[in-house]
C-alpha cells in the first residue's frame, strides 16, 4: 500500500565518515561522527542549510536534546530548523522523508544519520542535484522486539527468531522487486536480498540509523530500493541517480576502503573511565564560550590583522581591543608535543601545540589512539573532552592528518 502523497527530494552531495580502522575511539559518539561527515561536506559545497535533521539510535542525551551541539560544531547554530529522530534504525531513511517534506523551493536540508561507528551526511534540495530520493512506503505496527524503558538501564530482547522473522515479514511485504534490506539481523537481511535479487551489503560493521543512507550513497551509480525495518517501524526509499552521481559514490567507497585497510591493534582502544576526573564546569561559561569551544572561533584583530584564539580582550601584538570573529582552520603543523602519564584519564594523554594553517595556535589533547611528533601535519577533530557535571564537553583534539 503506498501513501497518498510522496514528496521526493534531490540529493546535492553526500559524505561518509568512518572511524579509524572502523573502530571508534572511546571519546567519539554519534555527534562527533556526524560532524566528521558534515564538516567536509559543508566546506566543499559552501552552503548553509536551512534544515538540519539528526537521525541516530545512540543519542548521547535522553533528555535535553542532541542536535544542538551538532549545530554548533557545524557552524549552523542560530537561525535553523533543527530536529532529531532517535527511535529506530530506520530513522536514517525517515529523516530523508522529513527533510524532503520540509524543503521549500530554494531551501537546502542537511540530514546526518549517525552512530559512533559511522555516519552519512546528505545535502538535499527540491531540485537540481545528482540523484532523486523518492520515499516509497512506510509502515508501522506494535512490535516489541528490542526495547529499553526510559530511565532504566536494562535492554530487553525477544526471541531472536521471532525478531528477525517479524522484521523480514514487514519489510518484504512493503515493495516488490530487487531491494537492499537493513535489519538488525544482518544474516536475515542478506538472505532476503539474495532471495529478491538485491545487492549485497558492502559495509563491514553495522551502522544503525546510518546504515541505510550509507548503502544508498555507496551504491549511487545505479537506482536502488532500500528497506529498513526494526521494532515494527519500516521505511522504503528509492534512489535514482543521474550521470554525475559517480563522484560521490567513489568518494564514499574510498573512505570505506581506506578504513577497512587500516590496521587497528588486536585490542580495542581502552575505555575511558570518565569519572576519574571531576572538572569544574559552568553552564553560563559553556554558553558564553560556545563559539570558541565548539566552532573553534577566534578573533581577527581589526588593527593588525593577527588571528588569535581564543578571542582575547586585547591583541597581544598591537594592544587593540577590536576583533572580527573568524573560525580557525582545522589543519596545521605540530610545534611541540608530549605524552603525559600524570594526567589521570587513561594510561597516558598526548598533548600537542599546533600552529594552524592561516593563523592561530591550538594547544590540546591528541586523539586517544594516536601519536604525533614535532613537525607532524595534523588536523583538529571533534571529540568528547570530559563529562564534568554530566554534561558532554565537546572540544577539539589533534589527529594525524594522513588519517583524513
Amino acid at each position, binding site marked *: 500500500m503506498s501513501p497518498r502523497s510522496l514528496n521526493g527530494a534531490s540529493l546535492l552531495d553526500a559524505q561518509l565518515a568512518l572511524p579509524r580502522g572502523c573502530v571508534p575511539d572511546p571519546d567519539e559518539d554519534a555527534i562527533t561522527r556526524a560532524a566528521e561527515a558534515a564538516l567536509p561536506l559543508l566546506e566543499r559545497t559552501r552552503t548553509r542549510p536551512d534544515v538540519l535533521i539528526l537521525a541516530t539510535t545512540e543519542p548521547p542525551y535522553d533528555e535535553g536534546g542532541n542536535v544542538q551541539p551538532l549545530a554548533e560544531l557545524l557552524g549552523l547554530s542560530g537561525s535553523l530548523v533543527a530536529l532529531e529522530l532517535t527511535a529506530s534504525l530506520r530513522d536514517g531513511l525517515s529523516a530523508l522523508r522529513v527533510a524532503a517534506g520540509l524543503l521549500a523551493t530554494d531551501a537546502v536540508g542537511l540530514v546526518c544519520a549517525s552512530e559512533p561507528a559511522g555516519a552519512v551526511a546528505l545535502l538535499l534540495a527540491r531540485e537540481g542535484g545528482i540523484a532523486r530520493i523518492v520515499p516509497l512506503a512506510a509502515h508501522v505496527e506494535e512490535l516489541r522486539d528490542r526495547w529499553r524503558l526510559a530511565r532504566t538501564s536494562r535492554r530487553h530482547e525477544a526471541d531472536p527468531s521471532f525478531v528477525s522473522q517479524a522484521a523480514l515479514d514487514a519489510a518484504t511485504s512493503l515493495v516488490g522487486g530487487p531491494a537492499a534490506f537493513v535489519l538488525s539481523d544482518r544474516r536475515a537481511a542478506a538472505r532476503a536480498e539474495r532471495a529478491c535479487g538485491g545487492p549485497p551489503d558492502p559495509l563491514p560493521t553495522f551502522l544503525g540509523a546510518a546504515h541505510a543512507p550509507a548503502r544508498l550513497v555507496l551504491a549511487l551509480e545505479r537506482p536502488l530500493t532500500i528497506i529498513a525495518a526494526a521494532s515494527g517501524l519500516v521505511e522504503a526509499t528509492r534512489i535514482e541517480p543521474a550521470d554525475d552521481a559517480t563522484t560521490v559514490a567513489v568518494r564514499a567507497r574510498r573512505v570505506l576502503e581506506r578504513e577497512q585497510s587500516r590496521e587497528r591493534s588486536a585490542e580495542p582502544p581502552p575505555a575511558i573511565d570518565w569519572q576519574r*576526573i*571531576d*572538572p*569544574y*564546569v*559552568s553552564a553560563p*561559561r*559553556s554558553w558564553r*564560550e560556545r563559539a*570558541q*569551544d565548539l566552532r573553534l572561533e577566534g578573533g581577527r584583530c581589526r588593527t593588525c590583522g593577527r588571528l*588569535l*584564539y*581564543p578571542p*582575547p580582550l586585547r591583541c*597581544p*601584538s598591537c594592544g587593540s581591543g577590536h576583533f572580527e570573529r573568524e573560525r580557525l582552520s582545522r589543519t596545521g603543523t605540530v*610545534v*611541540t*608535543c*608530549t*605524552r*603525559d*602519564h*600524570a*594526567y*589521570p584519564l587513561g594510561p597516558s*594523554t598526548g*598533548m600537542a*601545540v599546533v*600552529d594552524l594553517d592561516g*593563523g*592561530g*595556535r*591550538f*594547544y*590540546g*589533547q591528541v586523539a586517544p589512539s594516536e601519536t604525533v611528533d*614535532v613537525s607532524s601535519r595534523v588536523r583538529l577533530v571533534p571529540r568528547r*573532552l*570530559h563529562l*564534568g557535571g554530566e554534561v558532554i*564537553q565537546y*572540544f577539539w583534539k589533534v589527529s594525524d592528518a594522513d588519517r583524513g
Partner: protein
Amino acid sequence: MPIAGEVAIIGAAATSFGVHHDRGYLDLLAEAATAAVADAGVDLDRIGAAWLGTAEPGLTGLIGDAGTAVAEAIGFAPRPVTRVANFCCTGMETVRAGALDVAAGEHELVLAVGVEKMRDVPSRASLVARTTNLTHPTLAKGRTAPGQFALLANRYMTRYGVSRETLAKVSVKNHNHGSRNPKAHFQRPVTIEEVLAAPIVAEPLGLLDCTPTTDGAAAVVLARVDWARRHADRFVVVRGFSTAVTAGYYSTFYDESWDFLGFRATREAAAAAYQQAGITDPRHELDLVECHDCFTITEILNYEDLGLCGRGEGGTLLESGATAAGGEIPVNLSGGLQSCGHPIGATGVRMLCELTDHLLGRAGERQVEGARLGLAHTLGGPGVVAAVAVLGTPQ
C-alpha cells in the same frame, strides 16, 4: 624610595624541607618565622607587619588562605598581615612585597614568610589533581606541570640536538649539591643511569627530572639599609628585585610568538634586576645563582634566559661543569628544587636564605669563598611570571 640598594635582609631562616607529617601548616610557619626573627636579633614585638606567601591553601583546609595564619601561629595581633600569591613566584613575591613595605617607610621592620604544606594530601591529589579539576573546562585541559615543561624539553631537544643525558646531568648535579644540604628533601646523590631509568612522567621527563612534592617554610626579616647599618650585626643588601608578568595562564599556550625555547618573563625580570644592580656581565659578576629548576629542562633554559650563556648554549654550559660546585658560576648549590623540593610559597624565600648564608660566610660545606653577589630566580605558572632578585654584601 625604590628597593634596589635601599633594603636589607637582617635575618633569614628555613625549616628542613621534606614530608613532615608531624607538623602542620602553622607549625612550619611558626618554626621559620621564629628562627628568622631570632637570626635578625630583634624582638618579635618590633616587627611592624608581616607578609605571608602560600600558593595552594586548598591543600591545607584553607588555613593559609589569608594573612590571619601568621597572627595565629606566632602571636602577631593586631598587626597587618597580607597573603601573597603569584604561582611559583609566590615566595619571592612575598619578600618583594615586604621590601616595598620597608622601602616606602611604612614599617621599620617587616617579616616575610613563605609556607607550603603539600603532603597533608597524597601527592597525586595535590597539584596534578587540582590542575585537572579546578582549571578551565576546555582550554589547556590535559595540561599538568610536568606536561607543560615537557613541551619545552621536546622543542629544545629537537631544535638544538640536545639529549636526555644532558638533561639528566642537571638532576645529577643538583642532587649532588643537595647531599651537602642537611635541609634538603632528598640528600642522596643520583646517577645518570638512575635518572634515565626512572618512570616517565611526561615524555621526555622522568621522575628524577622533576621536583618532588614537599612541605617547608622559610622566612626573612627586612629593614632599610640605613636602619641595618645602625642596628644590625650583619646584613645583606637587595641590589635588584624585579618581577615580570607576560601573559595569561591559558592564553600563553595559544600565542604563536612563543617559541617554547625559553621564557620571556625570566628575560624581562632579569634585565630589570640587572639594570637595578648595575650588572652587565652576569656570568662573571655573579658568584652564585639559585634558579627555578622545577624540571631539569627548566634549569638549562634559565641559563640562557638569565644571560649566563647565549640561546641554545644552555646544554653546553651545563656539560662544561661551570655551573657545578667549584665551577665558574655555581647554580643551585642548595640542591635546587630538584633536591630540596618545592613547597611553592617557601621556595623563593629559601633561595634568598641560601644566598644570604653564602654572602654572610655561613654556608658551611656549600660555601662559595668570598661570595659577594648572588641571584635568585623563580618562574611561575606556565612561565608567565618570573621574579629575579640580586643580593650583595654591603659596600
